[in-house]
């Protein structure tokens, strides 16, 4: 049996690949959305990054 490029097996495999790609894409979107949500909810993020920033200094009483 000759296998043409449009054999049913190719269609199934193509559909499977598309499905996996869409699922992975959706997972990326969800993780990105979660990241945005968690960053939004948190306090302003500021930490040591090798340069002096007065805002990170503790105020003297």
């Amino acid at each position, binding site marked *: 049996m000759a296998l043409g490029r449009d054999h049913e*097996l190719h269609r199934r*495999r193509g559909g499977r690949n598309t*499905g996996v790609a869409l699922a992975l894409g959706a997972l990326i979107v969800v993780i990105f959305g*979660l990241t945005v949500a*968690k960053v939004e909810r948190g306090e302003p993020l500021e930490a040591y990054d090798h340069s002096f920033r007065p805002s990170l200094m503790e105020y003297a009483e």
Partner: protein
Amino acid sequence: MSDIRADEHGTGEAGFGDFVALLKPRVMSLVVFTALVGIAVAPGAVHPMVAFASLLFIALGAGASGALNMWWDSDIDTIMRRTRRRPVPQGRVAPGEALGLGLALSGLSVVMLGLAANWAAAGLLAFTIFFYVVIYSMWLKRTTPQNIVIGGAAGAFPPMVGWVAVTGGIALEPVLMFALIFMWTPPHFWALALFMRDAQGRDDYGRAGVPMLTVTHGRRVTRAHLLAYTLALVPVALGAGITAIGGPLYMAVALVMNALFVLGAVRIWRRDEAAAAADDFAVEKRFFRFSLLYLFAHFGAFLAEAMLAPLGFGGW
């Protein structure tokens, strides 16, 4: 292209839909709904994205346990009429593929729920998967007629996982939501077991060697057990209504639904096999369909109470 296993019908090459079918989408829809209610009725608020992600990963965990169940049960799924069209018995997906997908999705769902919500919810989801696959599928299902009584706990965890995802802890209300599904499961499945027979009238579970109550203790005893569990379900359903997640609307729904459910169970109990066979198990089939509505109505009422609360109507 030489690695394609080709035959006239194209079998042996799974489509994406076959892998989706491994996740038992119909069971997953019930999980999504009850987990959503668990999230919605829990006190406190989470970011909508966190709630959505939690729901997604709870559903994915349920799907993972479905795939693992299909891997383990592929031998008996081939025998039973209800399950023989599943992807593994049909040969479209290899058992090893179902195992791989189930394990991968289990790990992904638990870790992601931990990161999205909290690790208590993730631990509970991991336990749910373990309970369904190991305790129910591998152990109880083939060894005891109480299989679905205890195994029903696996299906009862999702609203509790949803609650824990929001609050980080357990309270009376999620325990009652758990108990509602737990007590509902035996009547639901025993009604199914009563009418699942092949053309020769042989019990589907009996042919597969699954010790359902219908097989080990007979159909008369199953009818009696179905009624007993239905009666035991009533105080759980009504009891949930007097907690913080209940309210007048829920109580009205619960009263009507439980009255009808008990009535259906009494009808099943009073029938003999000749009468049941004569109308092709019409009463049992109706009871089974109604059991789905019963659960949907209860959790829908919980949800409605939670939605109405901000408007000043829901709750007591």
